């Protein structure tokens, strides 16, 4: 764009533009947001790829994530160490995968990872119950929770093993009309 910026080298910006759905301006803006979270930790100059990770406790205070019941799971999914500490690469990856331009297939993969609480590559009944409890914050009675989870598995399970594999999940999401309009974060 012709602006003199010293945060990234041109090569880095090119790489980011190719690897995410963001434009130059947005990448620089995201870096500013990332830095805002921990100004003493994150340097302004990223040209030599410093290995800085912002802890999860700071990231989930972002306004875009603050009210989301799945915020911890989202941050954990995109973190390399699985603990929720995001480097800038992970940070920009997260918002790129969840942005509006990201295709449905990519969002489905990450949605599956987010909802798979115990990371066994299946969404079993316990994962479903945890998801439901995060959504309703314990307002449903245990019988209702069991009933809803049973019905959900009944609807989506194709191969009859009482849990959702990725193929089941993908098939179900492709028929869920609300997924694309709801599953994106605007930043």
């Amino acid at each position: 764009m012709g602006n003199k910026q010293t945060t990234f080298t041109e090569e880095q910006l090119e790489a980011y533009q190719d690897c995410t759905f963001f434009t130059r301006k947005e990448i620089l803006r995201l870096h500013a947001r990332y830095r805002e979270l921990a100004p003493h930790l994150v340097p302004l100059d990223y040209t030599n790829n410093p290995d800085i990770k912002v802890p999860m406790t700071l990231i989930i205070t972002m306004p875009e994530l603050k009210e989301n019941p799945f915020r911890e799971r989202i941050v954990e999914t995109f973190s390399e160490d699985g603990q929720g500490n995001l480097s800038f690469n992970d940070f920009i990856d997260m918002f790129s995968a969840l942005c509006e331009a990201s295709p449905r297939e990519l969002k489905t993969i990450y949605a599956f990872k987010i909802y798979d609480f115990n990371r066994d590559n299946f969404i079993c009944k316990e994962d479903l119950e945890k998801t439901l409890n995060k959504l309703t914050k314990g307002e449903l009675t245990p019988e209702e929770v069991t009933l809803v989870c049973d019905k959900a598995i009944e609807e989506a399970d194709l191969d009859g093993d009482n849990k959702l594999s990725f193929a089941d999940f993908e098939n179900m999401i492709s028929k869920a009309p609300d997924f694309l309009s709801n599953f994106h974060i605007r930043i």
Partner: protein
Amino acid sequence: MEVDSVFVTDHSGRISSNPLLDQLPSYQSLLYRRKSSTVGSKQRGSSRARVGSSGSGKWGINTFVRLTVKQKSQTEKRHIRELAKPMAEKRKHKKQCAEDAQKLSSWQQWRQSTRKYLRRMRDESEEWLNSLKLWRGDIHLIEGMFGTGILSYFSFLRFLVTLNFFIFLLMFGFVMLPIIIAPHASGNITFSQNESYCSVYKSDSRRGLVNYHKYITDLLSGEGFLEQTYLFYGFYNVDKIHFSHITYNLALAYLLVTIGYLFLSLIWIVKRSAAGFKHNLIQDEDCFQSFCNKIFAGWDFCITSENAAKLKKKTLLYELKTDLEDEKIKQKIAERTHKEKCRLYFIRLILNLFVIGVLAACFYCIYLATIFSQKAQMNEQKVNFIVDLIYEYLPSIVITFANFITPVLFSFIINFEDYSPAFEIRFTLLRCVFMRLTSIVVLLFSVWSRITKCKDGPCICGYNHDLYPCWETHVGQEMYKLTIFDFIVIVSVTIFVEFPRKLLLRYSSSALAKWMSQQEFSIPQNVLEIVYGQTICWIGTFYCPLLPAICTLKYFFIFYIKKVSLIKNCRPATRPFRASSSNFFFLGVLLIGLTLACVPVIASIAQINCSQACGPFVNYNTSWGVVPATVYQLPEGVKKLLLALSSEAFAVSCFVLTCLAMFYVIALAGAHKRVINELRHQLEMEGRDRRFLIQKLCQAQKRSGVRSPQSKFQPRRSSSRSSPSYHTSFATNFSDAVFLAHAAPSASTQV
């Protein structure tokens, strides 16, 4: 569970999946996408017992590498940013692609770099176009506060503003602009003139001393000083404009622009609704409200405010509870006895007849009000400023009144009809839509009945030229009045009803105030309001060419009024209106409005004689008459072609072809549905087969694993010789951690 013994829990109670499952091709193909999760789990170490992945050792990694190489060629077809890999891997991948690209020929390199450049350009231009979108910041704010349901209403409003603006540009560019620039571009205007009995048109402009309130009446009713302006059809007396080189046939342009804007609206709406329509066709009502959809796609990730989050949680809870109740109701419906069914159908019949009766009564009231208002307008004796205004606006008042009462009545009645909750909502909405849109048609019908009926026998000029020397202007005035009144009602309801309601709630804690508790932003009713306004605009643009501009401004102000009212006064409805289906619903209702609007326009263009005293079609019998006249003046070949296109033979064959295409597509859809069901059944069978086989395999492994400690003491050469491949293949394939005992047989064979 015997069936699921594939997934054994180890002694610590954690689930460990079988290593065999990890090596299935279907799992491996997903592995490259999910490598980051296994990386994360590797480092988590002891907290998870993923024996397979961490222990599959060399074989696992080798296969993984081989598979990634094979899949690389597949993934190159997909853009890097669509891969589900962490950033570092994507950049490595990009470097790899760049290196591979060096090996390509220069032509292919150039092609790749151009493609990349074009993609970059397209992204930036899309971003620039998005930034131009009207009200982007406001809509973002609303989305964060209220979620995507209400957002869809506001983006629908924005769509209507844009649509009206383009219709206005069409009208302005082709009809008004030539007239305006004619004097400046040395154009010679031929006015349409006709000296006959029918062409006497005394304009109603006031002369002499006029009271100030006459101007206000004129402004609100479109008469007086507004009548002979660009606003109404009657002003456009121009037939042709002769510029230096070309002759511009304004009459033809007027007609074609009318047809053009109807087509433009149709195409734009259909294009916009295409995506939502596909969803609705694939699924039936049950899947729509499925539990999975609510759990996995229910939370709106865009919500940023605490209130909206609380509300969304409440909404989801309400939806889930309602769905559980629906299940119970469905059971109840299935258990209905014969006698109950008969009684129910009888009640439904009575209530439907009652609804039809109510609708008929409303329509008759509108008809009477219109006739009365017309008679009062023709009456020269003016009583009073306010009373005059009321007489002028009587049809609008009656329509608005009916539109307030009927939804309440319908939602009361439907409680007795005992339908399923989803069907209840839709049926009530359908009735309200029908009520609103048909009331306009009834109004027009009553106006036309006055126009085409003369006192003694059939009319000489084809219309009642005594009362309506220029009937199109009169119809245009009625549409103008409807629009203005609609706008006034919306503004007054917001200011005089919603704000005081909120003040009442805040400052008084009486029971009445609590009963009138904070009102909800009812999306369907608001949408019907603006669709009603848009239908009037579509009908009225032919008679009142500046109406689209007025509607653009009207919707522009309505946006801000509704936004302020929403933020300050309302809370969103607890009965949620889903974003996905709402888009389809809005555009569906709009399409109904468009269809309904086409009917009066086409009827008046083709059937009713146009007025001989004003307008561009004076030289023709009907407004449509200008098209045949122009066609006959075209050169021979084009004339023959156009005549052939409009003949019955062509129309019938077109119709037959369309029917055939439709039948074919329907048959195709049916066949696809059958195939999908079969495949689903097959998938389930395959899954069961797989688990059965794996279970058998596990049992066989366990048996051989149990046998091997004994073989340490009793070398059973026969058994080891007879099946060395069996043991050795398993030894290479499975991790030592699971089959530690296998070391013994191989050691024993060597001995």
